[in-house]
């Protein structure tokens, strides 16, 4: 009796796993919005961004992604350091390479972009909002739980500088962590991969 229940359970779970649809297909369009904390690499400061991206899969391995980070606030990690950013926004566009297995996807990506930033008036009262070249290098992981939802975690290294201050150029490199719920739709009508498990009659 017990053996029968265990065997039935194993078969049920196994068929459940193998019957799962593969959601990573060419034409997959993903979007997300989340709160993303960051740490500045050249000063002891943590920033908070609201971030969002739109990503499109050209095929299972390659995708294009546009992304924006909007600065909300910052705080220094210790009393001897001051925050740096008063206003800030980062925007990037680039390509990602995916190492996916079933519905679990690991990826790396590179995105050229720009950083729009204004330092605090305590650093320079006349510092303007400045557009500076930037790039982002990503590593991350996504698990597609259903045809419309995914869970993801993403770590981005962003490089940029604020030039023209009396104290000299200030590097504004950051590590930005974003994670949470993502949304996706399939824009191409393509057969989902569903292994045939039922016997033929």
């Amino acid at each position, binding site marked *: 009796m017990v053996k029968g229940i265990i065997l039935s359970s194993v078969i049920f779970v196994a068929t459940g796993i193998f019957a799962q649809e593969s959601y990573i297909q060419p034409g997959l*369009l993903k979007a997300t919005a989340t709160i993303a904390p960051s740490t500045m690499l050249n000063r002891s400061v943590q920033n908070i961004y609201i971030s969002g991206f739109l990503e499109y899969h050209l095929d299972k391995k390659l995708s294009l992604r546009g992304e924006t980070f909007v600065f909300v606030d910052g705080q220094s990690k210790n009393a001897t350091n001051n925050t740096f950013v008063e206003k800030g926004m980062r925007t990037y566009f680039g390509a990602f390479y995916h190492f996916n297995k079933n519905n679990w996807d690991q990826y790396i990506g590179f995105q050229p972009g720009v950083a729009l930033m204004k330092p605090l008036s305590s650093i320079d009262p006349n510092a303007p909002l400045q557009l500076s070249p930037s790039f982002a290098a990503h590593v991350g992981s996504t698990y597609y739980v259903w045809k419309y939802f995914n869970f993801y975690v993403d770590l981005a290294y962003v490089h940029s500088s604020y030039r*023209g201050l009396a104290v000299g150029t200030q590097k504004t490199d950051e590590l930005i962590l974003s994670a949470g719920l993502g949304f996706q739709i399939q824009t191409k009508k393509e057969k989902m991969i569903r292994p045939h498990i039922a016997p033929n009659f």
Partner: protein
Amino acid sequence: MKLLIVCCTLFTTMALSQSLTIKNNQGGIISGGVRTTISAFNEGKTGSTGFGVGGQFRLQFADKVNSDWFFDYITSDVEDFANRTDYHIGWSVLFYPMKNLTPKVRPYILAGHCFDYSNIVDNSNRSNSIERWSSAVQGGIGTHVNLSERLDLSFVTQYMVHLGTDVHAEQENGVVVFHEESGASLEGHLLFHIGINYKIADLW
């Protein structure tokens, strides 16, 4: 309006993942992309490494000849007393020497022209600045790494020689002074680019 935006987005995304249909030969392929630039050194002793962002579109003329139309926005430091911004807009002709027309890695040599605008600003006094419009020629080597039929990564090294007046900043007795000297010099930028490029369509 919202429906129109959604329809446009879906149409565009569906078009992006279609396979590229080559009509006759590779001539007529148009593509677009973005790139990151490192300017290894700038004019004068005080110039330092610059960093930039830009974009390009390519129109291929023949199987072995392509053209690259680009815009770059590059910022750099002049020691710690000034900063420099360069805008480049220009074109290059790319020649692919390999016989194989669809390799995974496709090296090329390039040469072309560029118009550029440079602006150097005193860090301690933003009203103290100098600007220059000039033209330039550039040549170099590069390679495409074809990630798929439509998408490639491109790595380029090129040297850009400016033709026009030379502007540079110096600090004299604690004061930032700008110099403008006429005459062409062989000083310029050594530029490195990493670009991502997507083939949109074959026009003819």
